[in-house]
């Protein structure tokens, strides 16, 4: 299949930009790096749009979309069949992701020129952004699971670098470390999952793994470990990998802390692109999970559902606007996971799959918008905390408008994109699992509430005493806002059911009013409550908080998960594993080796009396030795 060869340029462009700005950036004026990055990303964005256009709309797709591999090269060969290749794989979800990633990345690049203006390390920032984009694109277009793993790791590292961008700030360093280690831990699951999968199937190739009716799983069912089939293990472990990156409970703890990074980074990585990698991974492996490891799919669904509820509850109590958004992201990612967990395969059955991808797309737009808006606010106020803000609508009209759009979108207000995608998820959940549906339904209300709590406290309420009057951000920052607002509004109208489906064959879907109307209502309920509580400054929230007592405190402290992790790492791993091992090594193992030496030396001193200097002692030893040898010889050897 030719004609898509240019797609290889999409990841290559950011790579080149990374290398160029990374190695030579110091020699230029900072702005040059920014411009190069932005222009490069713009090009990549255009290429992606062209790809998407020609892929989705460039032909007849009645029997489904083809999987196209325009480029592939062998990177490392393990065995005859286990080969890591580097390639470009185009199918509906990857093309969609290309668009998402390049769009958001382009917007963030543009935005960052304004946001990061005058920061030290401006070039470094753009280099890292490009590195991240490259990695993410590589992940998206991976032709095999190992390529995905490779870029998965690279994404993790770029995230580490960007979270820790303000490397002199201890909290940023700690956050980046945490993010990396937690996701690394999850990646271990991913890796082991890959190993099991490759052991069973002898291939890494997505094409072979996800082909319907494939025979590579042959006798896989007979393989089991601890009573669970090998593929369930594999898929659960791979899901753990995905859960780590997508910050599913209980591996979510890194994401809120990751907000220590510059806000554009949060928008790009921790809202729109990298965190959906886990969802993307599960979607990529969907046929395998669905057919070979239904138990794993159940887990996906429940973990997603729980995370979305859990995160939404926490989001209500947070004051740091970026953290609120972070928990909101968690909650939305939970939605996507849940959708995959409840999805079937093929046609209408695969509604959940479609919905998940759909929500991924819309969420990317509005969440990026929210973050960039938050960035704009922070830029103006120089604080992250809601109690430092209020009444900002007067000062920052564009930000205000776009932020409002985003809030409405996420709250599921009809005819905005979020409404459509969320609705599809609820429908899918309803069909498969009533419990999860109920959870999601509640979360929809909570989402609306906490988003508008945020919105009202920031843009309404009392004017704070600002150090200097907040002002609207420059154009270079507001253009992305406006573009994303536009996308948030209208991306819901994309015919996703026809484009991105589980079996790549489009289907028709109807609005399910039984679900849509209640969900709209609960959304409005949430907004209304927020209106009452936060539009005007009042002490009701505080009172409410007090009345919830311990529960509130627990929620405010994110259910103490950080503390639990700290306990596990600091206390158990450091104090109870590593320290004893270090001690054991120094004193027992090494002590033994040194001990041999010491004993030898001791022995050497003990026996010095033998050489007494007395000639007659020597003579006695001489004779006794000779006689002993004689006895030994005569009695034992003859």
């Amino acid at each position, binding site marked *: 299949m030719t004609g898509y060869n240019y797609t290889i340029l999409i990841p290559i462009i950011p790579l080149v930009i990374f290398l160029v700005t990374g190695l030579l950036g110091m020699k230029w004026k900072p702005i040059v790096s920014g411009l190069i990055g932005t222009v490069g990303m713009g090009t990549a964005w255009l290429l992606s749009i062209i790809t998407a256009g020609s892929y989705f709309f460039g032909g007849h797709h009645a029997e489904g979309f083809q999987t196209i591999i325009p480029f592939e090269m062998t990177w490392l060969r393990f065995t005859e069949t286990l080969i890591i290749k580097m390639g470009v794989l185009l199918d509906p979800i990857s093309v969609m992701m290309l668009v998402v990633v390049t769009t958001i990345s382009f917007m963030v690049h543009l935005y960052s020129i304004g946001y990061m203006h005058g920061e030290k390390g401006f070039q470094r920032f753009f280099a890292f952004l490009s590195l991240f984009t490259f990695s993410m694109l590589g992940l998206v277009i991976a032709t095999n699971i190992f390529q995905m793993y490779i870029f998965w790791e690279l994404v993790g590292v770029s995230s580490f670098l960007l979270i820790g961008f303000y490397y002199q700030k201890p909290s940023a360093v700690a956050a980046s470390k945490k993010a990396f280690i937690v996701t690394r831990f999850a990646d271990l699951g991913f890796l082991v999952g890959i190993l099991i999968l490759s052991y069973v199937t002898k291939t890494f190739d997505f094409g072979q793994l996800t082909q319907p009716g494939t025979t590579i799983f042959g006798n896989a069912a007979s393989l089991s470990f601890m009573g669970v089939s090998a593929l369930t293990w594999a898929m659960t472990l791979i899901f753990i990998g995905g859960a780590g990156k997508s910050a599913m409970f209980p591996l979510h703890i890194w994401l809120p802390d990751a907000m220590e990074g510059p806000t554009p980074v949060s928008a790009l990585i921790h809202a729109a692109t990298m965190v959906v990698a886990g969802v993307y991974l599960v979607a990529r492996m969907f046929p395998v999970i669905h057919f070979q490891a239904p138990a794993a799919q159940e887990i996906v669904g429940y973990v997603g559902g729980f995370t979305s509820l859990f995160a939404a509850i926490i989001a209500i109590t947070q004051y740091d606007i970026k953290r609120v958004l972070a928990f909101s992201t968690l909650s939305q990612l939970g939605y996507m996971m849940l959708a995959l967990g409840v999805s079937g395969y093929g046609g209408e059955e695969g509604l959940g799959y479609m919905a998940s991808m759909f929500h991924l797309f819309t969420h990317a737009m509005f969440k990026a918008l929210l973050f960039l808006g938050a960035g704009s606010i922070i830029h103006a106020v120089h604080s992250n905390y809601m109690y430092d803000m209020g009444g900002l609508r007067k000062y920052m009209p564009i930000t205000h408008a776009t932020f409002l759009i985003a809030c409405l979108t996420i709250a599921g207000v009809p005819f905005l994109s979020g409404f459509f995608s969320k609705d599809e998820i609820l429908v899918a959940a309803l069909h498969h699992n009533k419990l999860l549906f109920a959870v999601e339904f509640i979360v929809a209300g909570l989402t609306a509430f906490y988003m508008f709590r945020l919105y009202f406290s920031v843009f309404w309420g009392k004017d704070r005493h600002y150090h200097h009057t907040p002002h609207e951000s420059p154009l270079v920052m507001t253009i992305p806002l406006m573009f994303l607002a536009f996308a948030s509004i209208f991306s819901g109208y994309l015919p996703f059911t026809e484009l991105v489906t589980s079996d790549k064959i489009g289907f028709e879907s109807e609005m399910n009013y039984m679900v849509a109307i209640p969900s709209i209502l609960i959304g409005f309920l949430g907004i209304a409550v927020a209106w009452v509580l936060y539009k005007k400054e009042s002490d009701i929230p505080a009172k409410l908080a007090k009345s919830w007592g311990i529960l509130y405190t627990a929620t405010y402290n994110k259910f103490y998960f950080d503390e639990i992790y700290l306990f596990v790492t600091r206390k158990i791993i450091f104090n109870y594993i590593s320290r004893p091992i270090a001690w054991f090594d120094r004193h027992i193992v090494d002590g033994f080796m040194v001990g041999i030496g010491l004993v030898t030396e001791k022995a050497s001193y003990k026996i010095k009396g033998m050489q007494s200097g007395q000639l007659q002692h020597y003579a006695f030893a001489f004779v006794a030795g*000779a006689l002993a040898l004689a006895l030994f010889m005569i009695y034992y050897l003859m």
Partner: protein
Amino acid sequence: MDFGQFIIMRQELLLIIAAVVILIAEIATSDEKKGSIIPFSLGLFVLVTAVGFIPGQEGTLFGGAYQSTQLTMFMKNVLNLAVLIVFFQAESWLKKPENLDKISEYFILTISTLIGMNFMVSAGDFLTFYLGLETATIPIAGLAAFDKYKSQSAEAGIKLILSSALSSGILLFGLSMIYGATGSIYFADVAAKIAPTPLIALGFIFFVAGMGFKISLVPFHFWTADVYEGAPINVTSYLSVVSKGAAAFIFTIVLFTVFKSIVALWQPLIYTIAVATMTLANLFALRQNNIKRFLAFSSIAQAGFILLGILGAGDLGMTAVVYFVLVYVFTNLGAFGVVSAIYDASGVETISGYNGLYKTNPNLSLVMTLSLFSLAGIPPVAGFFGKFFLFTSAAGAGYYILVLIAVLNATISLYYYLKVVKAMFIDQNDQPIPTFRSSMAMRIALVVCAVGVFFVGFASGIFEYIRSISQLFLN
């Protein structure tokens, strides 16, 4: 009588002549010119050594009581070479005023013992062997007590002479038993009649005890350290290399020829002694601070290694032993040479006294290091090859565990050798031995040693030559 046949024992004859000539020279020189005996003797001995290397004739004398073969000639040449190096190293020591009147004594006594050793190596019967042994031992007692005014030297002499008297008594007792059992003192006849009977076993043990004394094997080694420490350095080096080497030669020859048929009997015995020797000597060497005493224990340990070669009980074993002794000559004399040079210049003979030596006397330190590494069996110096072949020999007889013990012992020995290296190179010293320039003769000797240590290993020709003559000898 055909006096021409005495050409077979030309090496011994030359030595006797040399001894006599030095005696005459001593008489002929006036008191003021005693010092000139040194270069004269050195020159003479160079000549003797050189003549020794002229290929000689094989054959037997005195009805088989004396035998000369390529192998024994080679052994004698090794000994001559060693003595030559010792003489060169002794030069500056002999020049000291307190030794001026004893110069020729040193040469004559040393050459006498060498004559004894040559006879011992060439022995064809136990009588010649015994005579050689005693000739090689008794004068050494005199040499050990050479420093007349040092009580340590006197003590070394008395300890040596009494121990050696006891040991030769026991040795003789053993020989008498072997004679009683076999009816002959000729090696060839004894070998034919030897059988694993208790009497012969007892005789054999006593023989081993006697030889163990000379080679200083545990538990017959106790005299070694005391005598080495007490005796003047140039006597110690002579004792540790030449005397021990000659004894190792004849011990190997006797075991491989006379006691060949009871090899299964003596192998476990030698095994035990080897383990005991290496281990005990190493343990003692660990904590020595006197460099001579330290080298004494080190040389005991080396004797333990020689036993590994003997265990091979074949031409490879013989080759390994001879080769090792050759290597050992250069190696140990290198070490002793440095000790001697330093003692002559500064009177220091403790290891801690060597601290910081490299700063002031780098060349001496390097020679010392080279020698110590060779003693420890570190490649690429000759000691590695010597040890490796000894171990090859033992492994060939199936003694793998013994090889392991031996190499582990070599590791322990490396520890104390490195302690000396550490003293010279690493440890700091406020008053290091001042820089000095040793005498020409000493430097020649050290260069010869260093070159030998370096090249004997690589020169496979030497090994191959020894192998061929050993094969000739044993068949």
